[in-house]
């Protein structure tokens, strides 16, 4: 009952006119930042920090948090409509979301993405509210050995992500790992494949590669095809998911919530991990895995829910202990510090009005976001009716401006174009791009956590078996690996043969 009375007090704080207004501004700006490729939640929050100087701490954090989770709603929009991931957590949404848009189901995909985001977000806050202190203590126990074991599973799952054959997916993963090694080795300071170019010291960024390989690659391929596009007036009914799509989405949304909530607690690239683990899970559980990649609603519903749930549970270590696990929570923590509120282990008990005000505002914010986003679906879908000769130059411009806006680096524009051409070649040869990008994002963390573990143990591999969490995860990854091999070599059943012949 304690939690409930605290929550009611929180709503008292959050439901003042001023705080609802700030929450709305944050959510609106977050949606904008999420929709625009290039500017992420991080830049969005930082830009508005000076604007909070005149506010009280509660108002400031309500607004900044709104930007943060609001951006996760917007991230899927460009993935679905243009095949450009709005932020790194929406890479897998491109796979099925864009195919749905090409079939004229873009509205349904956007609708389900927003709906799933709302459910994932709201359920995740409930978890945050009840479990913040205890989960924060669990999250800090998750050190390099555990991280390595988890990412091992992630990489085995990556193998089954692509819609193409196993032998076309694995080279793409290896290529992603290879590109991920570019830059300064974080553990010894050695430069790898940088050739003296300073822009490469920090590694190749996600944004130019993803926008190039997805966005520009897509344009180059599409210009060759004489696409029969879905045109004509969209009726309101066609914007909404039909009954089959709704029914297919329920389970992925709830599984995505659970997965996202747990993975969000982990440090580093948790959003990315949550969305793609959810995608592979849905593909495995599906009765028709071969249809993934051709526009299955489950491939949008699961990941988009998971990344929202993850973004909210990522605030647990920051609110419960005062330790930010990612860059965006770090910026929010700084904002609180400026207002004289110091997040830490005593934060919840010493500053209940700020903590519960924030929690309550997150319920309100999620409600605002779904009300804000659903009408936008109709608007965005109309973008698809813009003729290619206008749409393509605009997408190209978005990619160029979006990339340049992040670091004002001309070298990154070169990287964008290079991967644009490469993305085109991959598409022509029928190689999947998503496994490549995901391997590139997760690879450095895998390497880092492996080497950190060994540095901690002075080179002894026993560190991976001493931790119960790591040990369990490693056994799971071995089983998963063996299962994959078993599936690949076992004799095919009669109906599977018939299916293949039928194709």
């Amino acid at each position: 009952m304690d939690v409930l009375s605290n929550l009611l007090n929180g709503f008292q704080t959050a439901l003042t006119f001023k705080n609802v207004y700030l929450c709305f501004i944050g959510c609106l700006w977050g949606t904008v930042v999420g929709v625009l490729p290039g500017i992420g939640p991080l830049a969005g929050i930082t830009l508005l920090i000076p604007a909070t100087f005149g506010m009280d701490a509660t108002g400031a954090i309500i607004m900044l948090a709104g930007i943060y989770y609001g951006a996760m709603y917007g991230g899927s929009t460009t993935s679905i409509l243009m095949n450009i991931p709005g932020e790194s957590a929406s890479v897998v949404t491109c796979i099925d979301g864009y195919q749905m848009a090409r079939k004229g189901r873009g509205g349904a995909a956007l609708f389900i993405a927003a709906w799933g985001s709302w459910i994932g977000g709201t359920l995740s806050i409930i978890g945050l509210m009840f479990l913040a202190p205890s989960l924060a203590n669990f999250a800090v126990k998750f050190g390099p050995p555990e991280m390595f074991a988890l990412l091992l599973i992630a990489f085995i799952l990556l193998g089954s992500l692509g819609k193409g054959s196993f032998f076309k997916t694995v080279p793409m993963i290896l290529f992603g790992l290879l590109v991920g090694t570019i830059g300064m080795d974080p553990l010894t300071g050695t430069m790898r494949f940088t050739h003296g170019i300073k822009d490469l010291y920090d590694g190749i960024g996600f944004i130019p590669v993803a926008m190039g390989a997805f966005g520009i690659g897509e344009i180059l391929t599409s210009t060759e095809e004489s696409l029969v596009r879905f045109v004509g007036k969209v009726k309101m009914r066609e914007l909404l998911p039909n009954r089959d799509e709704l029914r297919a989405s329920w389970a992925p949304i709830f599984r995505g919530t659970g997965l996202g909530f747990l993975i969000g607690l982990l440090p580093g690239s948790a959003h990315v991990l949550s969305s793609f683990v959810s995608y592979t899970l849905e593909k495995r559980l599906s009765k028709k895995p071969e249809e993934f990649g051709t526009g299955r609603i489950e491939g949008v519903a699961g990941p988009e829910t998971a990344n929202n749930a993850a973004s909210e549970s990522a605030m647990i270590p920051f609110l419960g202990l005062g330790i930010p696990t990612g860059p965006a929570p770090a910026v929010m923590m700084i904002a609180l510090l400026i207002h004289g509120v110091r997040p830490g282990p005593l934060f919840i008990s010493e500053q209940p009005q700020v903590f519960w005000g924030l929690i309550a505002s997150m319920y309100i914010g999620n409600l605002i976001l779904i009300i804000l986003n659903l009408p936008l679906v109709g608007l965005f879908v109309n973008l698809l009716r813009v003729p290619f000769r206008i749409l393509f130059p605009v997408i190209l411009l978005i990619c160029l401006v979006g990339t340049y806006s992040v670091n004002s680096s001309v070298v990154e524009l070169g990287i964008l174009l290079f991967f644009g051409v490469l993305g085109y070649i991959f598409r022509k040869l029928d190689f999947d791009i998503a496994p490549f990008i995901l391997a590139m994002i997760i690879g450095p963390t895998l390497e880092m956590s492996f080497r950190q573990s060994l540095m901690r143990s002075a080179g002894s591999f026993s560190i991976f078996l001493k931790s119960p969490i790591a040990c369990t995860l490693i056994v799971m990854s071995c089983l998963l690996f063996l299962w994959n091999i078993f599936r690949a070599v076992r004799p095919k059943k009669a109906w599977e043969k018939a299916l293949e012949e039928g194709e």
Partner: protein
Amino acid sequence: MKSQVKRLSVLMALSLVIISASFAADYPTKPITLINPQAPGGTLDVQARAFAPLAEKMLGQPVVVVNKTGATGMVGGLAGAQAAPDGYTLTVGSVNIPNAIEWEIANNRKPPFTRHDFVCIGTFTMSPTFLIVPPDSPYKTLADFVADAKAKPGQLAFSSGGLYGMSHLPAEIFARAAGIKVRHVPYTGGGPSLTAVVGKQVDFSVNYPANTLSLIRGNKVRALAVIGAKRLKSAPNIPTTKELGIDAEYYGWVGILAPVKTPKPIVDKLRDVMKKVVEGKAFVDIIEQAGDEVRFLNGEELAKYMNTESEKIAKLYAEMVKETPK
């Protein structure tokens, strides 16, 4: 022909001098850009963004903070060093800039710029670090810790926010001064490095007051000492390494730098404005609320400090590079 070119260039140089001199009189006449070479939301960002609106009031022109990150600050530093020396592009400097340069030199690479490419305007803060251990660590005092580390050379491990960065050097300097051998496990950033101590993934770490004070108060980490000479106002009962007889000191300073050829009148005006802002109550309040302390060094003091510090750090890096397994 040649002499004509020469004469023309002299004329141009002269006119440039005159123009810049006349600029100085009514400087600034357009917005000033502050390049921050570090990521948004970091310590530098907070201080620069707190400074900007206050300086704006005194200068009468907008002061805009722009993050230009990359190569642990080298990309933004280079942009700042090569900017037009007209006082309209300044750099948010920190101890990372001279250190990154020395690191390049220690690794036999030619740094793209040196600290002599800058003229110092002043500092906002100069913070020491805490030496911290997990809350249930057997070490209650610094003496306990040093004794045990000496008994088990090379076995205790510490976390940092990144190789040779602001949270690696203090630990390295401390270990050398105390005569102990410890292992370094770099993490990506100050937050993850703190997590590693709280979660007992490592035996100890160092970190700055703004991030650490609440964890100390909430009993999630224990601070054994301040690596420096003077106790902190915000943590008066934590002794310093100097008091405890270990000669280790390291301060992470943050301040403002301008390109070296900036005209003297502009530099003087900036130094004057900076002193007034940094010592004013509004700025001090923001920094103290964030758990830090304002410590203003004027331009000359900072330049002197940077020179002596850089020499020390250069020696330390040379040793560290030698010890790195290849």
